[in-house]
């Protein structure tokens, strides 16, 4: 392991992507559960709520990435913990975007 260069920016990219995937899953389930939310997330009506779910996901992902990169630019973090959190968030994101789960069937 290279102890010289800080791994903060790398961890920021990894964790931000995980957060994005988790948010995608959470919004998918939420939009399916609430008609009002689904309508609010319909930013582009030909694409339906998917337009808002994905737009919000991308916005949050990029904001988290930017903030974490600024915070961790010169830091080195425990990649072991970042990976653990990563597996959980990706797992949940994949689960929540699986139709039998988010459609409740």
């Amino acid at each position, binding site marked *: 392991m290279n102890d010289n260069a800080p791994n903060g920016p*790398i961890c920021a990219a990894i964790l931000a992507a995980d957060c994005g995937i988790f948010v995608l899953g959470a919004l998918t389930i939420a939009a399916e559960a609430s008609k009002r939310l689904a309508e609010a997330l319909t930013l582009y009506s*030909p694409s339906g709520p998917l337009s808002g779910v994905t737009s919000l996901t991308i916005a949050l992902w990029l904001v988290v990435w930017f903030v974490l990169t600024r915070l961790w630019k010169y830091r080195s973090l425990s990649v072991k913990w970042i990976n653990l959190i990563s597996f959980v968030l990706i797992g949940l994101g994949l689960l929540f975007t699986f*139709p039998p789960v988010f459609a409740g069937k």
Partner: protein
Amino acid sequence: MAISKYDLVTLLHGLAFGGFFLMAVYALGYQMFSDEKLNVNKNYLFLIIGIGWIILLLGTYVIYPWYKANPEKLLLANPNQAKWQTFGMEWKEHVAWISVILISATCHILAHFKKQAFEDSRIRLALRTFLVVAFLSASVAGIFGALIAKFAPIHGGALVHLEGWIP
């Protein structure tokens, strides 16, 4: 040899861009799992990111509305075909975003922090995981896209004549 505009755009989305994206992700994954040094141009990594986003945006904002206008209704009207929409398309339209987000992060890390990515086994584990999940997610999107196109093809728009392209 005419093809409708909608068919042509759908083909570009799935076959051209999607095919390139899947192969590129597989190739990156192959290099990450091997012990060889990653030998890939930064511009190529950014190209993969760019193609991924083109696929997503074309799919969500151009092709998906065409699909919702008519083919979706055809699928839902037939009990034997409805699951292509309620399961296949519903899964595809979400899981594709997972793939591109992961690949964007992976390519960014490889482009700017390649040395660290290879020297730190835990970072390498994270990237390998990203690549495997991205490849499987993109495969799901591609397979269901191809199959749904067989049962509910998207036709429409002006005809594009391809004869002029053939020597």
